[in-house]
């Protein structure tokens, strides 16, 4: 589904990604871990097509297509979803209105008509139940005055509505209490199937107890320095990153 080959990317002249190689197949769950500043969030943003990053070298293909020339919204239309680490506020725009726009814009890109209101209502009801979201929440301004946990839950709610092929969850667990982690993971697990893939960016093993990864990658200095299975995450939890640094750099 997603294939990244020797990806180098920079922002404002500073190189952040230093030759990333990664392949993600449908039905897989990948976890990307690594110390602060290792380039995890940058990788997520580059895949999503954030303009402030420049791809210097390498290639990202999504379902066989080179997506370098595609805008962020075109990538979204193709089914790439990013759950933001810091979701932005849009005052005066309700969660419902925002998602209605997002869904219909995506449909428009596919040559489909707007989703009928009744269908939209049904979809919103169904997905809000999945994530145990209060109806009142839907009429609030997007992310404005939301608690950290509400913001993250709202991100996964959006993911549920958009049903992406590839979902990248950037530190979705930060700011979540234990109940919220359970609700969010439960939602993600229900959305997971053999046709989609999930990338989890996290610092902690905790979330991976709920959403079990097939692969775990460790990033350092803009590179994936070690890949393994879920046991690798447990080892990191226990030992930290220093042993990997030693292993890689000697």
């Amino acid at each position, binding site marked *: 589904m997603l294939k990244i080959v020797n990806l180098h990317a920079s922002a404002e002249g500073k190189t952040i990604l230093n030759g990333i190689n990664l392949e993600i197949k449908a039905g897989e769950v990948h976890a990307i871990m690594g110390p602060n500043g290792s380039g995890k969030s940058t990788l997520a943003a580059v895949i999503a097509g954030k303009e402030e990053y420049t791809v210097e070298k390498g290639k990202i293909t999504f379902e066989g297509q080179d997506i370098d020339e595609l805008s962020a*919204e075109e990538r979204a239309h193709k089914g790439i979803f990013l759950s933001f680490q810091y979701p932005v506020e849009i005052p*005066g725009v309700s969660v419902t209105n925002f998602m209605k726009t997002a869904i219909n814009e995506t449909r428009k890109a596919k040559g489909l008509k707007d989703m009928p209101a009744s269908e939209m209502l049904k979809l919103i009801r169904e997905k809000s139940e999945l994530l145990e979201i209060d109806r009142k929440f839907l009429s609030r301004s997007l992310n404005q005055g939301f608690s950290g946990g509400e913001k993250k839950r709202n991100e996964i709610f959006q993911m549920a509505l958009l049903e992406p092929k590839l979902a990248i969850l950037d530190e979705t667990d930060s700011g979540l209490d234990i109940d919220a982690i359970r609700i969010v993971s439960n939602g993600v697990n229900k959305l997971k199937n053999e046709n989609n893939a999930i990338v989890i960016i996290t610092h902690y093993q905790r979330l991976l107890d709920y959403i079990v990864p097939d692969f775990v990658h460790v990033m350092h200095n803009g590179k994936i320095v070690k890949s393994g299975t879920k046991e690798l995450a447990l080892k990191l939890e226990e030992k930290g990153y220093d042993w990997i640094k030693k292993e890689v750099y000697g």
Partner: protein
Amino acid sequence: MPIALAVVEKVSHYNFKTMNKFTEDDLREELKTQEYEYGFYTDIESDTFPKGLNEDIVRAISKKKKEPQWMTDWRLEAFRIWEQMDEPKWANVTYKKPDFQDISYYSAPKSVDPNKTLDDVDEDLLAMYKKLGISIDEQKMMNNIAIDIIVDSVSVATTFKKTLAEKGIIFCPISEAIIEHPELVKKYLGTIVPQRDNFYAALNSAVFTDGSFCYIPKGVKCPMELSTYFRINEGGTGQFERTLLIADEGSYVSYLEGCTAPARDENQLHAAVVELIALDDAEIKYSTVQNWYPGNAEGKGGVFNFVTKRGICHKNSKISWTQVETGSAITWKYPSCILKGDNSIGEFYSIAVTNNYQQADTGTKMIHIGKNTKSTIISKGISAGKSQNSYRGLVQIHSRAENARNFSQCDSLLMGNDCGAHTFPYIEVKNKTAQIEHEATTSKIGEDQIFYCNQRGIDTEKAIALIVNGFSKDVLNNLPMEFAVEAQKLLEISLEGSVG
């Protein structure tokens, strides 16, 4: 030798969505063909088009309107005051001062050109009509193209007229009111905005050519949104519009003014005056969408819009101004309320959008004179391009205004790095029981917000529209439903291409 003077009426289709495109070429063409089909001749005939302003011109305007002597005198008085006045310079706008002797104080009528079709109309304009969802017939009217089914519009207008007449509501061109209802006009004209109020009000008082008059009798709730729409083909609007609206005791009226369609008027200077009178227990809701030609992307051309709008509230009455200002090169406009009666309420809801080289200095004045008077000000300024957008507002609490309350909120939204947002709130309080709140925010549409929307499949144009509409929601909600939908589209179009 007679003075060379042809005074010709400009009749634009007086529809709240409709304004004419009227170029110098059209004008020349019309003068050549001599088709003064509306027959507005004065006894001083000529085929040249005179410019300039003097007492004779003022008299000629009044005469052509068949006005009574008191009206002519009132105009002349205004003209003499105007001659002594200087243009106001305190607004935060810079522009080349118009040459008042280089303006024709009467413009030619627009007649339907039988050879013209929509194919002859500017493509950009047509594209914009399409976006606004303006019907083909309306597009034709706006561009002075013959319409086959105009009879329908006329009959619709007639039906509305009948309904209004049954309620005793008077709604007609002000020139008609001067002749048909002189007692009302005489009693109220100039009482809220006196001739000497300001430079542009004085000018308007001297030379206004048309506008609306509305009277709602005691206890009558006007059964429909009154708008210039219903006066289609009956009158004309012009550079110097004059509106007088009287809501008698216990009555209610909602009035819509302006148009969402781009008004490519070639008259550079517009100076309108609007006076509202809300008698005891009456309520007036006055909504405006202003979309005069703002000039091109380089800041060339565009309308100068210098407007004086003011209302007076008697006991327990309420005046609510809602405005969406997207057009004009220069906007100078402060719809205000004099809260004279006890327990009266004034409201001002405004969205002002400036893009490219537009400049807007707009706001309100809330003058609290009566006891327990309340006012609310919600102002949303959106600046893009190289534009400058200023809010200027006065909240004045007089010494006898016990328990007066005001809440003001002024929010500015900036797009890009070359525009400006300014806030000039003036507060004068002479009664210590007053409660005044002022909130202000300035924010910028951030790349992060845009990227967030993009990531959800919403392109940048649409994202901006979404953010701007969210920002403007408190004001849009105060517009009548249909108008709000159009205004929302208009906001999107006005800001198109403003984030590259």
